[in-house]
């Protein structure tokens, strides 16, 4: 018999130009592990931030033990007994283990100063209880490995007597043995009656540890239930089964000879032995889970990440881009995933963003010619169907979709040979999405070659000529996208689920 601990209903949260969560509901039960499953951008991390008081939902209600609660600050979430253990643990490296466990609620002496002896004693007891007696409570946290940091985070959760524990992709950087230890710990938490939300991409882990599941897609909850009555196939279908009927204006274009050839490109830690070719007029999709190394490979092509070995050949000439400036000069441009940080300069007007990499063309002997900048901007933003009140409007005041159009317009103005789009439609509205997709068709029509990194299955299946699947920094397989390739096959190769699994 499990008891309903936490329930969310009708939670919505939107950001300028994006609906991150739409009327979402979720239930967590005491003594049970609920798995939260969804593609990247499905709204999982937004939900975690709502639960931990970092974001305020626009509408909807949260109740704990059948009582309505509000979580206006992270501290109030903490007081209500909610704690989160993140992928990259958000503890304090320079503080000791005991300080991390008791931060904010350390035992005090009569004089209201911290009772160090009592704190360390309590910390030792807690660590012992969770089977982590090997951790010295006086060590600074930075001297621990990631697995031990997780243990400290769990000890912290126990110390505040958290009733609701969120584990946000806790196994991402753990070894097999460490994952086993973590699961033992989760079972211990379960036995103590904690309600646990477990977020992971990995199906084998979910089946191993979770009791219930909840699937998110595009900011909506699309299915939930008991795991033991549900097959892996069904969950994959729920994850991807959306509007595969969405219209993608993929045009039939004869693919020409290779423009870009990458051979044995390797990086000490991020990726290894990457080889592929990109034809003239081709759209090459890159699919994989977060952390598969796709963005890192693209940033190496763009001169941001240094490679250890391997060659890049563009139009038959070997290039070695040491900076984005080199790559742009060679004809490779990159539309980054983190638009706000890497793509546009928010506080500068639209035209200054668009003309930035083309200033050498619009200027005269190094002196700005504003009229030419405006003309260039108008030409390329019109092609992207930009919506703005003027070209001098600050870029930060536009929606995400329009900002993305500006980034693409900026690169088109440099007349590149190869354009790399990293999650080009992540977090932008449907209308802008269509504009970006339509435009990719235009680009290849004009003889450009496109590399598209995307985690959105309909997009990758709808737009790509071929699809490269990456996992753990390596290319697993390159599929020809001839219409017979299914979303399920892609997900399985990316997540390493054997194809004949039930």
């Amino acid at each position, binding site marked *: 018999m499990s008891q309903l601990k936490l329930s969310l209903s009708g939670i919505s949260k939107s950001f300028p130009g994006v609906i991150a969560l739409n009327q979402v509901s979720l239930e967590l039960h005491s003594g049970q592990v609920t798995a939260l499953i969804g593609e990247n951008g499905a709204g999982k991390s937004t939900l975690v931030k709502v639960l931990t008081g970092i974001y305020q939902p626009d509408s909807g209600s949260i109740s704990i033990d059948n009582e309505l609660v509000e979580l206006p600050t992270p501290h109030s979430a903490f007081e209500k007994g909610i704690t989160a253990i993140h992928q990259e643990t958000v503890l304090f490296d320079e503080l000791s283990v005991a300080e991390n466990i008791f931060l904010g609620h350390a035992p005090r002496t009569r004089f209201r100063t911290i009772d160090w002896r009592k704190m360390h004693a309590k910390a030792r007891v807690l660590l012992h209880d969770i089977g982590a007696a090997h951790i010295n409570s006086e060590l600074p946290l930075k001297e621990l490995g990631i697995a031990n940091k997780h243990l400290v985070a769990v000890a912290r959760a126990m110390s505040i007597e958290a009733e609701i524990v969120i584990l946000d992709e806790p196994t991402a950087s753990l070894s097999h043995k460490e994952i086993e230890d973590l699961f033992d710990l989760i079972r211990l938490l379960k036995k103590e009656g904690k309600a646990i939300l477990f977020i992971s991409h990995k199906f084998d882990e979910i089946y191993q540890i979770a009791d219930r599941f909840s699937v998110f897609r595009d900011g909506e909850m699309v299915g939930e239930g008991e795991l033991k009555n549900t097959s892996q196939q069904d969950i994959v279908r729920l994850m991807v089964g959306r509007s595969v009927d969405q219209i993608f*204006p993929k045009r039939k274009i004869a693919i020409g000879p290779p423009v870009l050839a990458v051979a044995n490109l390797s990086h000490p830690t991020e990726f290894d032995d990457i080889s592929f070719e990109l034809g003239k007029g081709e759209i090459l999709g890159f699919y994989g889970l977060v952390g598969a190394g796709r963005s890192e490979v693209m940033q190496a092509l763009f001169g941001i990440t240094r490679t250890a070995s391997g060659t890049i050949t563009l139009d038959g000439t070997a290039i070695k881009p040491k900076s984005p400036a080199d790559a742009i000069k060679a004809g490779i441009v990159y539309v980054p995933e983190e638009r706000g940080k890497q793509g546009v*300069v928010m506080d500068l007007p639209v035209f*200054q963003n668009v003309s930035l990499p083309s200033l050498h063309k619009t200027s005269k002997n190094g002196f700005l010619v504003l009229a030419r900048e405006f003309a260039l901007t108008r030409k390329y933003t*019109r092609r992207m169907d930009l919506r703005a009140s003027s070209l001098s409007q600050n870029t930060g005041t536009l929606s995400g979709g329009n900002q993305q159009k500006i980034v693409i317009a900026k690169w088109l103005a440099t007349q590149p040979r190869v354009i790399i789009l990293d999650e080009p439609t992540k977090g932008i509205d449907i209308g802008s999405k269509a504009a970006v997709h339509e435009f990719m068709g235009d680009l290849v029509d004009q003889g450009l070659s496109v590399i598209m990194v995307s985690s959105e299955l309909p997009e990758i299946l709808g737009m790509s000529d071929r699809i490269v699947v990456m996992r753990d920094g390596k290319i697993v397989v390159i599929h020809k996208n001839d219409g017979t390739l299914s979303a399920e096959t892609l997900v399985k190769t990316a997540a390493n689920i054997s194809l004949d699994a039930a």
Partner: protein
Amino acid sequence: MTELPSKSRNIPDRLVSPIKTALFSWPTLLLAVAIFIFILNSFASPYFLSAWSLSDATFNFTEKALIALAMALLIVSGEIDLSVAGIIALASTIMGLALQFGVDTPGLVVIGILTGLVCGAFNGALVTGLGLPSIVVTIGTMSLFRGISFIILGDQAFKGYPESFAFFGQGYVWWVISFEFVLFLLSAAIFYVLLHRTNFGRHIFVIGNNPVAARFSGVRVERVKFVLFCLTGLMAGVAAVLLTSRLGSTRPSIATGWELGIITMVVLGGVNILGGTGSIQGVVIAAFVMGLVTFGLGLLNVPGIVMSIFIGALLIGVIALPILLTRLHDRVSR
């Protein structure tokens, strides 16, 4: 073929004319303040409103203002140089040293300016090459540069600069118009063009707003910053020549505390201390404001220490004002 969306519309270049934007900007407000102080000064002291007295007033700020022009660019790019006064001391000392070896006026000028340039390049190399924060690097080099001149000079002073050398800090180009003042106006024009009318200047603004996006757009961020440190050092070298010429001697304590006045000038001129925005017009007017204020206080026999209290208060006030205004605005609109 799909048709182009029929909704595609013509977006205007701008909605507000540049003249209107300029009219409601910080420099315009500052100009009003400058005029107000000017009028106040002329009431406060009967000696103020004479051509020679006004000419004297310019000596109060031209050397600092020359450095402020370059410093403005550096701060817009998101960096800062606190070592400029130290550079003046070292450049002046090296000039004095060269004088002992019989170097004549042209040689002294070149040596002074070059020393500044080398110091600036040293700062720039540490910041861009090693990726250190400029505030820490230049606090270090601030003591380093002045320390070297203390080692060379001890409690001595270099004197006996040639008569022809005196022109730079004491000479007049025409009537009451000094060489220093003309040099300042010329430099202001050059820096205005550099920051507001060239690709290089555009890159400075982009870097100050978002260095990551700048890099991702092909701007050579480190190179631009290095050049700006060199430029600031160079202007400090120029100031060292002028100041040494005006004083006619070099002591290791020369120009002590000038960085405070220079940075105040830049911030008062409307340059965001965190980088990204600012204008040369603003800095030039701010230089006049500070010159008028200190000269006015001088006429009223206000002691130097009170003036530095005043400048310190002004610096804090100018930085705090926009933050307070935004908060007030937020509160009112809520």
